[in-house]
């Protein structure tokens, strides 16, 4: 059952992930990326990440991708020629080849090291991945990085406003 759910979600994520990078219009890329993120959120539930999956939906699907769509529409991006059109063909061939090598390398690493790991993993406590557990850890063991994130967000906010506010000279 669990395997079936995983297979379905993984298939959707994989196909949508591929479609993200071959679209001619950025809006379609964004839509397929949303689908990928949605199915990843489903996979997160299988991994007992009860808090992270809903954060994935809110932050990635609900905020980041909306921002992407917003910018795409604001900038009036047109459809572009297919990425495999003649002038780019050689470059793309090399890039794809290198990526295949990367993928093979990662595959070998996984196969060597983890293929024998027991399926399903160890039994975890019922509090694993719950909101309270995450919250407690964030405010105890990870308090310092957690506070740093607020500075990162503040800097990003200020930076975005300065950059987008008026014409750069």
């Amino acid at each position, binding site marked *: 059952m669990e395997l079936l759910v995983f297979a379905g979600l993984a298939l959707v994520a994989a196909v949508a992930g591929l479609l993200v990078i071959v679209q001619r219009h950025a*809006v379609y890329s964004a*839509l397929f990326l*949303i689908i990928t993120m949605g199915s990843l959120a489903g996979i997160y539930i299988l991994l007992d990440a*009860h808090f992270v999956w809903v954060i994935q*939906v809110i932050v990635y699907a*609900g905020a980041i991708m*909306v921002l992407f*769509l917003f910018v795409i529409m*604001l900038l009036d991006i047109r459809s572009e020629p297919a990425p495999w059109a003649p002038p780019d063909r050689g470059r793309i061939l090399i890039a794809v080849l290198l990526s295949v090598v990367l993928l093979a390398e990662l595959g070998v690493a996984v196969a060597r090291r983890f293929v024998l790991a027991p399926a399903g993993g160890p039994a975890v406590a019922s509090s694993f991945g*719950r909101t309270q557990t995450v919250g407690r850890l964030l405010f105890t063991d990870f308090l310092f990085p957690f506070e740093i994130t607020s500075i990162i967000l503040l800097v990003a906010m200020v930076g975005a406003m300065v950059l987008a506010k008026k014409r750069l000279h």
Partner: protein
Amino acid sequence: MLETLIVMLVKIGVVFGALLLTVAYMTWIERKVIADIQVRLGPTRVGPYGLLQPIADGLKLMFKEDLIPSQVDRAIFLLAPSLSIIPAFIAFAVIPFGDSTTLFGLLSRPVPLHITDIDVGVLFVFGAASLGVYGIVLAGWSSNNKYSLLGGLRSSAQLISYELPMGLSVVGVLLLVGSLSLVDIVKAQAGVAWWFGILPVPNWFLFSQPLGFCIYFCCALAETNRAPFDLPEAETELVAGFHTEYSSMKFAMFFMAEYANMITVAALATTLFLGGWLGPIAPSPVWFLGKVFLLLFLFIWFRATLPRFRYDQLMNFGWKRLLPLALLNTAITAIVAVRG
């Protein structure tokens, strides 16, 4: 196993049916209430008191010609209405509409009256609400019409802006309860508080979080594109905004999504601030429905009374008034919750 499955399916069916029925009759209620406020009669012809009007409207919309303009982006144009209506309905999966019941002894075990209770219920509802914006944005973009695009952009900016104070306004409640589960939140509001030792008030978060409730309600109006925040569909300036090019059932789906969203935010407000299904004597779903309809009436009242905001006023109100107020509310609640 089988019994649980049947109970679950029945619950989903009942909730979905009730939601559709409420959406349909909200149009009737809205027309009647606004007519009353404006000293008119409203629909009277179709059925007694015009009660069959929603059905007539539905049939009319279904049989209208379904126009698709030639220059639209077809795939997205066809997808957008469903994208806007699905999140509106999905949020109801976690909203509890009543206490456990055996249906007057009909069932062997008490059945809790909610489809599911997940430990991140509040976040789930917000997540679903934040997905609703896609339908509007994509409808505006794919229509290939500048008014639609402007409406879609306005709407997405508005939704993103008001999501923040909305999320912050309920943090106070979450701090007091210590759980994100909507069932836990309702249960935490049981009992009676005594004001000044003599005045009995229900232990609802409306009374301990009045500021939070006001902020939530303002944001709810904005999130559902209702007056006075209905800029995305301002008829006078944008020719109805993102759904200008839509006709027939697709138009109806945007309409239904808007009303379903209204019901969702009202139900969430009931759960978070008005004690959910809690109340004396009457069965719990009756209390829940009563409170939801009270809030929906407020929505309609606002629409009949308030003029529309200007766009810059809307943004200023969200970012410079509501957001700091919500932060203040959170800070005060946190201090009180820790000290008290």
